[in-house]
């Protein structure tokens, strides 16, 4: 392993809240950047208050999902309702390379932390703003939740059982997706800065970021005027069959099977011991056309098997098949265990908890997964060492609930 991480020396002020913004900081932090959430006891991020809590004891430093989504970020506390705190925030930004925020447009300006004000203290700052629909346009002030943002991209209209209504994805898939894409955006701007010396203000519309995933269906609309609808588990371009999820033995056990090539189809037939009906589905065009009856036939065959055993059997014949995992399976699955996807760590407050580590593996560097953060854990370092406040002044700012 190399001694240094790729983003060592990059410092980030992360005003991001809830989920998407913190994941941007987390990703940069895992890769070696020094990242601090700027938050406050005066207005605790609601994400810190979501159960379940460590050892069942509620508190802003005990939310288990918060720790998973925010690990890698440090934390300083500033009560940004006060002018003094805003001035300290600007002084801190002056030592940073990157600023992240995911408020609505104008919120940072209301805190006297607009791009222009931050550029005045750090001319080559890279600022990432990621409001729901971007910094301008008629919908710029739209209110959405992470889990409903997908509705204004067209993505929700494609999710559901075929011929049925749209079915919601019951959490904000868009948040981690935009968080990871946001980290890429920052890196693109940093690459530009290292070549030209110039920073910039990235205008990241979460609507536009997520809508990238709708590209395949968008092209069918553009080329053929078709708006599409819920596709279930069918191939998004109707180019493969079978392509679905089939029942297995046990309660809520399922297997995914995707057959794209003729060789895979032959493998599936062999795994099923060559049923007589298979000849009715020769050729991909025929399989796609008769996909519903094909799926019914396969479901009759799969339902007696254990999902893991059947996946192994099908893979032995070269067929793309995998069990459909539930939450418990994720923690127990041998593949995720072997890859160290989930790790038990000790939180700075001393309790053990399970979070995820490097969600991408790198051969020469090990991700810097810092559990936590505890509210204000980096105040001493940032305000005294980095900004050079005297002990007296620092204590006074804490007593006055400016650093708070």
């Amino acid at each position, binding site marked *: 392993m190399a001694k240094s*991480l*790729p983003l*060592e020396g990059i410092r980030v002020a992360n005003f991001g809240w809830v989920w998407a913004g913190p994941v941007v900081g987390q*990703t940069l932090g895992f*890769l070696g950047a020094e990242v601090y959430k700027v938050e406050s006891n005066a207005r605790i991020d609601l994400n810190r208050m979501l159960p379940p809590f460590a050892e069942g004891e509620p508190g802003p430093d005990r939310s*288990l999902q918060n720790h998973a*989504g925010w690990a890698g970020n440090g934390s300083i506390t500033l009560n940004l309702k006060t002018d003094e705190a805003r001035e300290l925030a600007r002084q801190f930004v002056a030592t940073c390379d990157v600023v992240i925020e995911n408020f609505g447009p104008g919120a940072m300006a209301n805190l006297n932390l607009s791009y222009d004000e931050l550029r005045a203290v750090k001319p080559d700052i890279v600022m990432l703003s990621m409001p729901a629909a971007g910094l301008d346009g*008629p*919908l*710029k002030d739209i209110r*959405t939740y992470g*889990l409903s943002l997908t*509705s*204004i*991209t067209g993505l929700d209209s494609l999710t559901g059982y075929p011929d049925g*209504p749209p*079915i919601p*994805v019951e*959490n904000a*898939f868009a948040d*981690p*997706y935009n*968080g990871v894409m946001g980290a*890429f*955006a920052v*890196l*693109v701007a940093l690459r*530009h800065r290292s*070549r*030209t010396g110039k920073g910039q203000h990235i205008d990241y519309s979460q609507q*536009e970021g997520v809508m*990238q*995933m709708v590209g395949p*269906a968008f*092209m069918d609309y*553009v*080329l053929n005027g078709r*708006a599409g609808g819920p596709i*279930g*588990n069918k*191939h998004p371009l109707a*180019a493969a069959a079978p392509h679905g999820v089939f*029942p297995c033995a046990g309660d809520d056990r399922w297997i*995914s099977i*995707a057959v*794209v090539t003729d060789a895979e189809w032959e493998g599936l037939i062999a795994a099923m011991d060559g049923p007589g009906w298979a000849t009715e589905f020769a050729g991909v065009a025929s399989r796609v056309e008769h996909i519903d009856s094909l799926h019914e036939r396969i479901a009759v065959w799969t339902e007696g098997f254990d999902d893991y055993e059947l996946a192994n059997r099908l893979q032995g014949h070269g067929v793309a098949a995998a*069990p*459909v*995992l539930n*939450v*418990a399976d*994720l923690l127990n699955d041998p*593949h*995720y265990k072997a890859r160290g996807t989930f790790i038990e760590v000790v939180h700075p407050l001393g309790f053990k*908890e399970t979070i995820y*580590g490097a*969600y991408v*593996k790198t*051969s*020469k560097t090990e991700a810097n997964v810092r559990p936590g953060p505890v509210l204000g854990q980096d105040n001493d370092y940032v305000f005294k060492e980095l900004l050079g406040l005297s002990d007296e002044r620092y204590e006074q700012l804490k007593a006055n609930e400016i650093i708070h």
Partner: protein
Amino acid sequence: MPEGALEGTRIVELGQVVSAPYCAKLFADYGADVVKVEQPRTGDLARHWGPFPDDEPHLEKSGLFFYLNTNKRGVTLDVSTNDGRDLFLKLIADADALIENNAPQRMRDWGLDYASLAKANPDLVMISITPYGQTGPYANWNGYDLNAFHLSGTSSRYCGRPGEMPLEHGTFAADFFGATAGAAWGLAAVVGRDLVGGGQHVDVSCAEAIAATFVGAQNIGGYAQDNHFEKRTGIGMPLGAPATILPCRDGHVWMLALEPGQWNGLAEVMGNPDWMQLEMFQDMFVRAQNAEAMYPLIEQWTAEHDKHEIMDRCQAAGVPVTAVYTVGEAAEAAQLKARGYITELEHPELGSVRTLGAPFKLPESPGGPTSAAPTLGQHNDEIYGGLGLSADETAGLAAKGVI
């Protein structure tokens, strides 16, 4: 015209269909020089998947290929031959990154595993994006987007009705997620080469990226501690209400009114019906317990109104209700037009065709597609010439079917 942010970054792509091509597109759309390598004659599988105009298959008319390969130059090369492999090593000799999504065993069979490539170019960052990743017991399993998505826990936990089959998110969701993760971590590896001491292998499992950052983030800590976990409900947000998709006169709306101000705003928009004042609907948790009684009452109102009207009036009252846009409505949305998100490109076979713009805007170095996806082998002469091959040599390789 200002330069792209990634001007001067050199990328080679050996990928097909969605994950590696989308990852490479992210680099290309921000100005990197991306050379896409395709199998001679057949090309990227996406060329065979459509959507095609009028559903008529044509190697140069796939909408999927058109969307995912903007701003790239394309060559053909059969890397399974000795000549092809030698030429591929020349291509990556001074590249910053290789982006690929082949089965790990196939890359080894071709002699193009990371160890071999690092010998040819120690500064190369190799970004591998596969359903399961390079290591672990499923590394050599065959797989597609569908398998990776359902291995991530997303569908069992969050998508579908209880007892019915778990659902994908309506697109190649795992491939797009993995591609994005590969772009972020891969670009970091490129940026940090001086610190790290050269290139490295970036191993993305599409399933793992989602299992960790989405499902794991919200559920693993609780399960590990309390040995308890939840499954999909088909509703939306089962613990607070209203938080679900409801039908309206011309489609569907995402109905959300959780905080007191939002609930009051919704009441105002709906004309303050008496039932909304009942004790059983007075906070989001109680409403969730009485959801079966409440949703039909809200639905009576939504059924008489159009989705855009409902959205506009609710948004004006501070209620975060949105219309469930069809793909067509999203494509024509005023917001996206105002921001110039939809762009248009000239393609030799498809003509003038609209596509999606860059995922984020960089004022100093605008991104976005400016040139259409390459036709099969479009840049063979230019790129192989640039590597020092004479016209005779190129013709010789073409005659052997290598390019």
